[in-house]
């Protein structure tokens, strides 16, 4: 009826089978133990919500309104005590080695109770994702060791990502725009390292982090070809904190200004620069964009998981209200319109979840999760005692050859189609879920009337918190354009993006 060649042709005709049915392709390849692991992670998150997040979320929000200068070290210390800052660090680096997709499920749970607290944990992994995108094994080992030590010594060591600048937000998320923008964070090559000058703004967890992955540029006229990724430690001479933003929501999670004035970063903390990128199979400019895709494909799915949490939190509050409140002498939950509205809200949060799960599948098949999700690797790392692994790999990590091998595998090993598929799905999940998150908050308010307006009923806080999700990790507009660029435009050679 149909030949093999025909099958291939038909499935490669847009919309391509491989772009569409990620879960179908991924499910049979999943290690079985991952399901058990995710169940465990969700249970841990729920326990943490019950004992730490819920009892403190409203109080922290209130505290921040009263005293915007407060830094939530108390919460960060608790999260550190529970082991959350090392839970998703691979065992070879001393972490607990939980699989990356399980982080999203965890984030949805925490996000459903408090998005600020979810961010206080989740942004650390944005920092780690940016750290690992350079595949500089020696520096990864060093920073991860700091995080692990921080857990043991009860002095939390968090990692932030600093890319946004006062004049460039969208422009630093897309290489096409970078060269036309007003980028000012300069990394000047000097003997033994880089001299960093410039300002980064809105950096989540900035004031709380010990390490900052800073993206700067060696030539401000050609940022796209001179991206430099640096690890900068708090306390480094020439680096200081500026203002702490006064935000509408997610108040518990600081957004900081980072100021660099002739800040010297030695070579041993240079994660990657154009020289090193020139060893990749793609031109430097494309490699720089690949790194952005590589990170955001995973972290945007993470934002979608936060958003699923927000959509769910709003639903849960509306449901609780409807089941306790009499309206026109009848419990609200027994008004048909309310039942349909609750069903709509349930659908919204379920769809948000499906979007991040699908995006995670893309990353498992073609992106940053691929390596550790292959069954043999997964079980090898899972079953081998952590001490052995560290012993085996510790000195290897110091060798430049390891960095070269990993870069070859991770960067050169990804095809263009795979880069676009993972990034496109990351964007889809991000803007779909975050729009639904806001939608559910508005629907909850429409149902709850004056009760919804009170901070002590939580929905108003969820609305304030959730709005940020439509903005960071690239605005939802940029993410729509990225989806177009990645999943639609490739089949239309006449389509040009960012050039109207």
């Amino acid at each position, binding site marked *: 009826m149909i030949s093999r060649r025909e099958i291939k042709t038909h499935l490669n005709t847009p919309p391509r089978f491989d772009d569409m049915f990620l879960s179908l392709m991924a499910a049979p390849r999943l290690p079985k133990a991952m399901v058990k692991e995710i169940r465990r992670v969700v249970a841990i998150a729920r326990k943490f919500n019950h004992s730490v997040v819920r009892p403190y979320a409203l109080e922290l929000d*209130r505290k921040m*309104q*009263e005293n915007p200068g407060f830094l939530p070290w108390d919460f960060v210390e608790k999260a550190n005590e529970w082991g959350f800052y090392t839970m998703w660090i691979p065992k070879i680096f001393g972490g607990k080695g939980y699989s990356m997709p399980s982080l999203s499920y965890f984030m949805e749970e925490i996000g459903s109770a408090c998005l600020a607290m979810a961010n206080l944990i989740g942004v650390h992994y944005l920092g780690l994702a940016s750290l690992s995108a350079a595949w500089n094994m020696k520096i990864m080992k060093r920073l991860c060791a700091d995080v692990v030590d921080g857990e043991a010594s009860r002095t939390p060591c968090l990692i932030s990502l600093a890319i*946004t600048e006062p*004049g*460039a*937000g*969208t*422009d630093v998320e897309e290489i*096409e*725009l970078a060269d*036309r*923008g*007003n980028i000012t964070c300069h990394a000047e090559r000097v003997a033994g390292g880089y001299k960093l000058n410039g300002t980064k*703004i*809105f950096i989540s967890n900035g004031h709380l982090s010990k390490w900052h992955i800073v993206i700067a540029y060696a030539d401000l006229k050609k940022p796209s070809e001179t991206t430099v990724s640096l690890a900068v430690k708090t306390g480094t001479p020439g680096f200081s904190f500026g203002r702490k*933003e*006064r*935000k*509408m*929501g997610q108040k518990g999670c600081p957004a900081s200004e980072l100021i660099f004035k002739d800040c010297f970063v030695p070579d041993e903390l240079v994660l990657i620069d154009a020289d090193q990128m020139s060893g990749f199979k793609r031109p430097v400019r494309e490699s720089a964009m690949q790194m952005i895709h590589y990170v955001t494909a995973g972290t945007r799915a993470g934002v979608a998981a936060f958003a699923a949490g927000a959509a769910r939190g709003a639903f849960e509050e509306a449901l609780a209200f409807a089941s306790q*409140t*009499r*309206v*026109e*002498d009848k419990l609200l939950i027994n008004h048909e*319109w*309310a039942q349909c*509205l609750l069903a709509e809200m349930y659908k919204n949060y379920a769809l948000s979840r499906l979007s991040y799960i699908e995006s995670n599948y893309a990353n498992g098949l073609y992106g940053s999760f691929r390596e550790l999700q292959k069954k043999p690797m997964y079980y090898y790392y899972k079953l081998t005692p952590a001490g052995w692994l560290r012993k085996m790999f510790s000195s290897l990590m110091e060798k430049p050859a390891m960095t070269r091998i990993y870069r070859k595998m991770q960067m050169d090993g990804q095809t263009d189609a795979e880069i676009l598929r993972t990034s496109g799905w990351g964007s889809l999940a991000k803007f779909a879920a975050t729009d639904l998150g*806001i939608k559910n908050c*508005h629907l909850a*308010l*429409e*149902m*709850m*009337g*004056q*009760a*919804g*307006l*009170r*901070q*002590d009923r939580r929905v*108003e806080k969820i*609305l*304030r918190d959730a*709005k*940020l999700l*439509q*903005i*960071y990790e690239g*605005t*939802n*507009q940029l993410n*729509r*354009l990225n989806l177009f660029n990645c999943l639609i435009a490739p089949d239309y050679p006449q389509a040009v993006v*960012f050039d*109207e």
Partner: protein
Amino acid sequence: MIPGQDKELRLLDRASAEFAKKELRPAREENDKYPFGPFFDAVLEKAYSLDFFNLMLPEAQGGMGRGIQSLCVILYNLCQEDASLGGIIFTHAASQQVLLSAGAESLLKPTAADTAKTSLIAFPSFNNPGEVEPAVTAYKNSGGHLLSGSVEYLVLGGIAAKALIPARIEGKPGYSFFLTDLSHPGIQKSQPVLSLGLHACPAVDITLQKVNATLVGAEGGGDRYFNAMADQMHLAAAAMAAGIMKGSFKEAFDYCKAREQGGRKIINWSEMKMILADMALRVKCAEMMISRACLSADRREKGWEPCARAANLWVCAAACGLTTDGIQLLGGVGYMKDFGQEKRFRDAAQVQSLLGIARMKKIKFIEAMMR
């Protein structure tokens, strides 16, 4: 809002727009800190001295005897800069309208010695007592009535001298309104309730124990008076939402003309134009809709009530969507306190709940048409 040719209305339009720019805009962020910052007493008193509070009160009662259009013009202008003062004026006007529809105007005579604080009447203006049953019971005693129970989210309850409270009279159907003195020793007030928006239009929860109160109008007439008030005041809430929309649009428009990304002003990216166009369209439609509905209401044209309610439902929903975009167009800075956008986003969602649960207002709207 379109003030038309009415001279007095044009004066009010100008005066309120100027007041908003001079008195509200510069201190918007400071005033929004309440209850963690000081309350804007001085601004409130200034607004009171300009007669913004007694616009719709008949001249015989010492008011200006204006219609709903005048109130809407003022609220529209004020809320472009800061909707909290609008919330205070709204709540006070709602109390006045309930008293007027109950024929209790004698309880409403402002005197020259009055200040805003002595004359304001607190009111649970985000609740329709016909939907969510009042938790206060009134008992008859020799001098009048005694109230016991609790009221959630009594707007202005922490700053006003009097309150208009819905309560059930023991053994009687429906509910009734009572005017009571908030300094009565039987009243316990909470701290200001921390809320989504309109921070400087604060609310408190109160409990009452055997508090003397004066019945307003007839026993069991509460629903009738509330609805008569709401018919008009739906337009006032819509005008507040429209003002917030206008303020959000203006701020976004100006920002997009100044901010550059990708080597050009962001207003020159066509997706930005598209969003701005959607915002501008909604502002224009809201302005036209409210202006027309006000005219209809003030002339008491046949069927003016559903027009007012339709305007409220459409404009308030549009304001929630528009102010979400209003932040979005500013990117990260839109989320910060430095610009007014985040406040407008919160205020719009708050205003949507004035006079009761938004979805129930829709049900009421269609049920009225079915009758």
